[in-house]
């Protein structure tokens, strides 16, 4: 369902992703692990269409639809979701107003009317409860003064509300304590479905104890240098990335 072929990405004149190929079939969850500077966040941003992440070569499709020619908002409407490593703070905009704007924009893109307020509130309440998010938090300015854990839980809430076809989770574990990690992971797992794929980007194997991937890939120097089953994550945890970084050089 999610198909990336020979992707090259240039940021500020430097090639960060250098010929990356990755296929995630529907229903599967894949993990990308790699050392600092391997290009993990660059991959996530380039696939989501952020300005300044220039794709110079290659292709990326979601359910057969070419993503690279689309604006970020069109990619979202096509079903792509990026859970940010560092969610942005927006003072003056409540979390609930933001979610409402996002959900209704996506509905509009699919020719649907805005969701009536009572229905929206009911939906948010149910999803927030599962993530142990207080409804009072939803009235606060978006991500402002949220703890690291609250920010990541709110990312998971957005994903639960927007119901993407394919989600990229960029270091969702960073800034989370063990309890928050478990809650976020449970909710991500609840979204696993035969018609939905996920790509989990992480430094550490710990997250993968909770979100069990079908496949693990090692990213080094902008390319996938090794792929394997979940046991690869344990191997990396034990031996480190050195071997792969050297092999990629």
């Amino acid at each position, binding site marked *: 369902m999610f198909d990336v072929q020979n992707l090259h990405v240039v940021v500020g004149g430097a090639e960060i992703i250098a010929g990356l190929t990755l296929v995630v079939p529907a229903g599967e969850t894949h993990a990308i692990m790699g050392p600092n500077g391997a290009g993990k966040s660059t991959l996530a941003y380039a696939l989501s269409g952020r300005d300044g992440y220039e794709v110079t070569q290659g292709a990326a499709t979601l359910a057969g639809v070419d993503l690279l020619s689309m604006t970020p908002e069109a990619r979202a409407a096509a079903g792509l*979701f990026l859970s940010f490593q560092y969610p942005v703070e927006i003072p003056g905009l409540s979390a609930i107003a933001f979610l409402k704007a996002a959900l209704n924009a996506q509905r509009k893109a699919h020719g649907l009317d805005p969701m009536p307020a009572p229905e929206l509130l009911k939906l948010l309440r149910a999803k927030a409860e599962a993530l142990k998010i207080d409804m009072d938090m939803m009235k606060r300015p978006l991500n402002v003064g949220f703890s690291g854990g609250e920010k990541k839980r709110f990312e998971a809430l957005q994903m639960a509300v927007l119901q993407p076809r394919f989600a990229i989770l960029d270091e969702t574990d960073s800034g989370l304590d063990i309890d928050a990690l478990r809650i976020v992971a449970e909710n991500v797992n609840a979204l696993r479905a035969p018609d939905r794929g996920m790509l989990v980007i992480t430094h550490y194997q710990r997250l993968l104890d909770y979100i069990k991937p079908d496949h693990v890939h090692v990213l080094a120097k902008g390319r996938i240098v090794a792929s394997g089953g979940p046991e690869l994550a344990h191997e990396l945890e034990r031996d480190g990335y050195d071997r792969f970084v050297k092999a990629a050089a």
Partner: protein
Amino acid sequence: MSIAAELPNRRIEAWKYSDLRGVVGDQPHVLREGLDIIERLAPGTQQLDVPAGETRLLVERMDDHRHMDARAVDYSVGEGASLTRVVIQTGSDLPLSVARVRLAAGAKYAQFVLALGGRLARIETHVDVDGEGAEVELNGVYMVGAGRHADLTSVIHHRVANCVTRQLIKGVALKGGRGVFQGKIVVERGAQKTDARQYHHGMLLEAGAEIFAKPELMIYADDVQCAHGNTAGGLDEGSLFYMRSRGIPEAEARALLIESFLVEAIPAGFAAELDGELREHIRAWLAEARI
């Protein structure tokens, strides 16, 4: 006589960004004697004394699109009294306003100005903090499109101890629009334990937009907490991408971001109707601006 020769031009320090002489030009006006320029242009000075312990709310709408609209007001806020003033400036010609406010002990003055600018609009506020324990909140938002000039100028004079000032001004300018913020806070020798914060944040939405800022803190007391911050920049690219990555189209995301940037300066606690009116002005301006 022609007043042009008497009007301040950009050579006068306090008017250096707002060249009133250049804008008004050689039109005949009759001036009154012995007052500052806006007071002399105004047909009279409106006075209000808020008695001790009482609360007042004033909403002024400056919406004259065809004439010079010069206003002078003089307020005194009694002990423990509270005055809130909201100015909504939409008139596009020459809205000129000067307010002189005196605060007694424990008095509160809260002001919010929403300015769309005019050929030349200037909302000038002077606050004398004369009584201990008084509190000042001077907030404002300006939004200037092509050909509009909005000037928010204020002087807050702390003369006694234990008083608080909070000032947050936010503004946006389009190509050909000019925003001006001049904010002076004077903390006199006797005004120990003053707690004053002044912030002005401007956003230049297009090339060719102009924002001038002149923040001034003059502190003569040695046991005070004073801070100020002043920024001018563009829309945050990271925030814009975050919103677009959730499916919000670029134009809508920009408008939402600018709106959320501006509404931060609207004080909490306004009646829903007034708060709604102010937000509606902001949304309507953004809808028309099509950034």
